[in-house]
C-alpha cells in the first residue's frame, strides 16, 4: 500500500507526502523561488544606489525592500535550501529509509511555506515590514512603527520558527538513531556531521529568538513593556535575544556548506578527506564558540571595555577552527587528481572567497576597529562574501553534486561552468568595492548618499555587479531546461564518490535501500583504494562494501503512510497567525483546526500494511 501511494504523482500525492526526498524537492523549489525574489529585491536596492541622490525608490519603500531582502534571504531562502539538502542527503548518507519523524518533517515544510507566504502577503497589502531583519526595539514598537508591517515580520518568523525547531529536532534524532549498522559517529560523512551539529544549533538558537519575538508581539499588541525604556526596561535586551540567536544562525547557514564542500573536495580530488577527525571537531568547536560571540554585533552599544574585550577575544578564536578547515581542504587537494567539474569549481570558489570573508571578519573581531566598520558597507561586503562565497557557493556545489542522484540525469558541464564563472565574477564585482565604500564612510541601510563623499564610483561598480548576478541565472535555467529535455542518464555513482548515497539507484527508490547496508569503515565505496590507518579501523577486507542493490527489494520494506494531517495542522496554525493580525474569531477557529489536526495526527496509524 505504502509503495503504490508513494509512486503515484499528482498534486494530492505531494500534499500528503512524507517521503524525505519529495519534501527535499519542495523545500528546494520554494527556497529557490524565495532566493530569486529576495535577489530581485537586492537588485532594486542596487539600482537605487547606482548614483548619489537618486529617487528611483522612496525612502519608505527602500526600507521595506532591505528588510524583506534580509529577512527572506536568511529565513526563507538560506534556511530552506540548507534543510532541502538535509532532507535529501542525510537519510541516504546514513543508510536510512526516511527521517525519524516523517510526518513532523512534512509539517515543518508546510509551516515554513505558510510563514513565507504570510510574510509576502504584506506586499500586495503594501504593508511590508520596514525595521530591518534585526528589527531593533524601540523603532519596531507600535509607537514608531504603527502599521501592520512589523506584525507580519514577527508572526511569519514565529510560525516558520516552529517548523525550524521541529526540523532541528527531527534531524538530531534521525542522525543519532537511524544510522545503518556499523555507521559509527567517526564513519559518518562530513555533510551528515555538519547536519548533526547544525540541528543542535537550531534547537539551541531558535528558542531565545522565539522568546524575543513573543515579547515583541506582546509589547506591540498588548501594551507590555519588555523593551520600553520609559517603563524602566532596557531595549538592549532585544539586541541580546536577537543576536544570541542571530550569530549561531550564521553558522546554521555556513556549516552545512562546509559539510558539502568536505564531501565534494575528496570526491573530485579522488583522495580521502585529510584530517577527518580534525575537520569534524573544528566544526563542533565553531558551533560551540558561536554561542559565545554574539556581542560582536553590539560593540558600539557601549557595554564597557571588559565585555568588549571578552567578546572580541572569543570572536578571534573562531578564526582558528575555520582556518583549520581551510587548511585541511587544501591538504586534501594536495597530491590529488583534481577534476574541475562544476561542483568542484564551486567548492574551490568557496575556499577562495570564504577566505576573503573570513579575513575581513577578523578585521572587525577587533572591537576598536569594528567601531569604525560596524553598520557600514564594509560589513555588508564581509557577510556577503561569507553568505554568498560560503553558503550560496556551498549550496550550488551541493546542487551540482547531488542533482544526478536526485533526478537520475546529468547537468551540462559547460553551462554549469558558465554559471560558476558568472556568479564568481558577480560576487567580486558587487561586493569587493563595498569594502572601500564602507571604509570611506558609507553607512548601511541608507536609501541614498550625498555627492562629494567620494562614494560614487564604488557604488556604480557594485550595481554593475548586481546585474551580472541577475545574468548568472540564465545558464542555470538553460541548463535545467536542457536537462529536463534531454539529460544523459546518471547511473548510481557518476562521480565515483565514496559515500553510501551513491550505492543506490539515481533517483533512489522511495524506500532508498532495498536492503539496509552494513558499514564497517569511512568512505565505504573507496574501500579497495584505501590503506587502513590502523589495524582496528579496517577489518576483514572485501566484506565491507555494501552490495549493489537490485531494483526490486528482496525483503518486505515497511514505509510510513502518506498523511494529510501535517498539512491540516499547519493550516490551523496559519489561520491562527492571520487571526493574530486582528481577528479573534479567526484565531479561535485556527486553534480548533490545529487541535483537530493534532489529535487526528496522534491517533493515525503511522504504518500501513507491509509493502512488497
Amino acid at each position: 500500500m505504502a509503495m503504490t501511494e508513494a509512486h503515484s504523482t499528482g498534486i494530492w500525492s505531494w500534499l500528503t507526502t512524507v517521503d524525505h526526498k519529495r519534501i527535499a524537492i519542495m523545500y528546494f523549489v520554494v527556497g529557490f523561488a524565495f532566493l530569486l525574489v529576495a535577489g530581485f529585491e537586492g537588485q532594486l536596492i542596487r539600482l537605487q544606489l547606482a548614483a548619489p541622490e537618486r529617487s528611483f525608490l522612496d525612502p519608505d519603500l527602500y526600507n521595506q525592500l532591505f528588510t524583506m531582502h534580509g529577512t527572506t534571504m536568511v529565513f526563507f531562502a538560506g534556511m530552506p535550501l540548507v534543510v532541502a539538502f538535509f532532507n535529501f542527503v542525510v537519510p541516504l548518507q546514513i543508510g536510512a529509509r526516511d527521517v525519524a519523524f516523517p510526518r513532523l518533517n512534512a509539517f515543518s515544510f508546510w509551516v515554513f511555506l505558510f510563514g513565507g507566504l504570510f510574510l509576502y502577503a504584506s506586499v500586495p497589502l503594501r504593508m511590508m515590514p520596514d525595521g530591518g531583519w534585526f528589527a531593533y526595539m524601540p523603532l519596531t514598537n507600535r509607537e514608531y512603527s504603527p502599521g501592520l508591517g512589523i506584525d507580519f515580520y514577527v508572526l511569519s518568523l514565529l510560525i516558520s520558527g516552529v517548523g525550524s525547531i521541529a526540523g532541528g529536532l527531527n534531524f538530531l534524532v534521525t542522525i543519532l538513531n537511524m544510522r545503518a549498522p556499523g555507521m559509527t559517529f567517526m564513519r559518518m560523512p562530513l555533510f551528515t556531521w555538519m547536519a548533526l551539529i547544525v540541528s543542535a544549533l537550531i534547537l539551541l538558537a531558535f528558542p531565545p529568538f522565539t522568546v524575543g519575538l513573543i515579547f515583541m508581539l506582546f509589547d506591540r499588541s498588548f501594551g507590555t513593556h519588555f523593551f520600553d525604556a520609559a517603563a524602566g526596561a532596557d531595549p538592549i535586551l532585544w539586541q541580546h535575544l536577537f543576536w544570541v540567536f542571530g550569530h549561531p544562525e550564521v553558522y546554521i547557514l555556513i556549516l552545512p556548506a562546509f559539510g558539502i564542500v568536505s564531501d565534494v573536495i575528496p570526491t573530485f580530488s579522488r583522495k580521502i578527506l585529510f584530517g577527518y577527525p580534525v575537520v569534524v571537531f573544528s566544526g563542533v568547536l565553531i558551533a560551540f564558540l558561536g554561542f559565545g560571540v554574539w556581542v560582536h554585533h553590539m560593540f558600539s552599544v557601549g557595554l564597557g571595555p571588559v565585555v568588549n574585550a571578552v567578546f572580541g577575544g572569543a570572536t578571534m578564536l573562531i578564526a582558528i577552527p575555520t582556518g583549520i578547515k581551510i587548511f585541511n581542504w587544501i591538504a586534501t587537494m594536495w597530491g590529488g587528481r583534481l577534476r574541475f567539474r562544476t561542483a568542484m569549481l564551486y567548492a574551490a570558489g568557496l575556499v577562495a572567497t570564504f577566505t576573503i570573508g573570513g579575513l575581513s571578519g577578523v578585521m572587525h573581531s577587533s572591537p576598536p576597529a569594528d567601531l569604525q566598520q560596524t553598520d557600514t558597507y564594509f560589513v555588508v561586503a564581509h557577510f556577503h562574501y561569507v553568505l554568498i562565497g560560503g553558503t550560496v557557493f556551498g549550496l550550488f556545489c551541493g546542487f551540482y553534486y547531488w542533482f544526478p542522484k536526485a533526478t537520475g540525469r546529468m547537468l551540462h558541464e559547460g553551462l554549469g561552468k558558465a554559471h560558476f564563472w558568472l556568479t564568481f565574477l558577480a560576487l567580486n564585482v558587487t561586493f569587493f568595492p563595498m569594502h572601500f565604500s564602507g571604509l570611506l564612510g558609507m553607512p548601511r541601510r541608507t536609501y541614498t548618499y550625498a555627492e562629494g563623499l567620494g562614494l560614487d564610483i564604488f557604488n556604480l561598480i557594485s550595481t554593475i555587479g548586481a546585474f551580472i548576478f541577475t545574468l548568472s541565472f540564465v545558464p542555470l535555467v538553460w541548463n535545467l531546461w536542457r536537462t529536463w529535455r534531454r539529460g544523459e542518464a546518471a547511473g548510481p555513482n557518476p562521480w565515483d564518490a565514496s559515500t553510501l548515497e551513491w550505492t543506490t539507484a539515481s533517483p533512489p527508490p522511495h524506500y532508498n535501500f532495498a536492503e539496509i547496508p552494513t558499514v564497517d569503515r569511512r568512505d565505504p565505496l573507496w574501500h579497495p583504494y584505501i590503506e587502513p590507518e590502523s589495524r582496528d579501523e579496517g577489518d576483514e577486507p572485501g566484506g565491507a562494501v555494501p552490495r549493489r542493490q537490485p531494483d526490486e527489494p528482496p525483503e518486505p520494506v515497511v514505509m510510513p503512510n502518506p498523511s494529510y494531517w501535517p498539512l491540516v495542522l499547519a493550516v490551523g496554525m496559519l489561520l491562527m497567525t492571520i487571526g493574530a493580525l486582528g481577528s479573534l474569531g479567526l484565531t479561535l477557529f485556527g486553534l480548533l483546526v490545529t487541535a483537530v489536526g493534532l489529535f487526528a495526527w496522534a491517533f493515525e496509524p503511522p504504518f500501513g500494511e507491509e509493502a512488497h
Partner: protein
Amino acid sequence: MRRRAIAALVLFLGVLVSQGCGGEYPQSTLHPSSDSATLIDQLFDQIFWWAVGVFVVVGGILIYVFVRFRERPGDGRPKQVHGHLLLEVGWTLAPALILVAIAIPTMRAIFIIDRSTPDPEALVVEVIGKQWWWEFRYPELGIVTANEAHVPLGRTVDLRLRSADVMHSFWVPRLAGKRDLVPGIENQLWFRPDSVGVYHGQCAEFCGTAHALMGMRLIVDEPADFERWARANAEPASTPADAEARAGQGVFMANACVSCHAVRGTPAEGQFGPDLTHFGSRLTIASGVLENTPENLARWLDSTQHVKPGNPMPEVELSDAQIRQLVAYLGSLR
C-alpha cells in the same frame, strides 16, 4: 583566458586602491584627525596587513594546488593520506600566534577607547539623537544648537550621548568610532581633534524613514575662533534690523513654527524641533541635507517633505512673500 582574467582583476583592484587613496573623502575612516580615530586607524592598519599576508599565502598555495594537481590523462588514483599530526598542530598554532599579535594591541586600544576620558579639562557636550536630527548642548557654556557642533582644537571633547526616541549611532569617522544613542542610557564618547576643519558625520544605526539624511557636521576651530563662536551662541537672538527680516519674525511668530522651534529671547519656545537662535550661522539645513543658502532655505520652507521625506516638519501654507521674509529673518539669526 585565465591569465587575461587575472590581469583584469589586478587592474581593477589597482583602480580601486588608487581611488581609495587619492581624492576628497570627508567621511573616511582612513583619514583620521583625532587621537582616538588615529589609534583605531593604526590598529586597523596592523590587522589589515596581517590579513593581506594570510590571503597572499593561502591564495598562493591554492593557485599552486589548482594548477599542479589537476588530473592529467593517464593519471591513476593518488596515494590516499589520512592526515598528519604535525601539520595539524602547525596550522593551528600559526593562526593562533597571528591572533595573539592582533589581540594585544586590540586589548590595549579597547581599554583606552571604551573608558571615560581621563582628561579633567575635557569639554562636555551633550548629544541628543532625535528622529532625524541631532541636538547639541554645552552645559558649561549655556549653548543649545542643532546638527552642527563647534569644538576647539587640541582640547578633549567628552560627548554624553542620549536618545529621545529610538536607537541612533553617533559617527564622525575622521574623529571617532561609533557610539550608540540608547533610550534610557547615557553613553560616552571622547576624542581630541588634531586639525582644524569641517568633519562630516551621520547616524549609523537604522532609525526609520529619514535615517539616511540624519547628517551632522563637527567643526574644529582654533581656540580663539571657538571662544568667539561660543560667546556669540550663548547670547539670545538679536532683534532683526531690516524690515523684511522683521516681517519674517512676525510670520514666524504667527505660524506653527513657534510650536516646535525655540528662538531664545523671543516668545518662540518650542522644544520639539531644533533650536534656531543662531540658525543663520550654520553651514547646513535639515541636518546636513542642504547647504545653508537663501535659495535652499526657501526650497526647504516650501517643500520640506520633498527635501527630506518623512521628517516631522509639516509643510505650512506660506506665500512666496512670506517665505522670502522668513528666509531673511532666519538668515539674520547669526
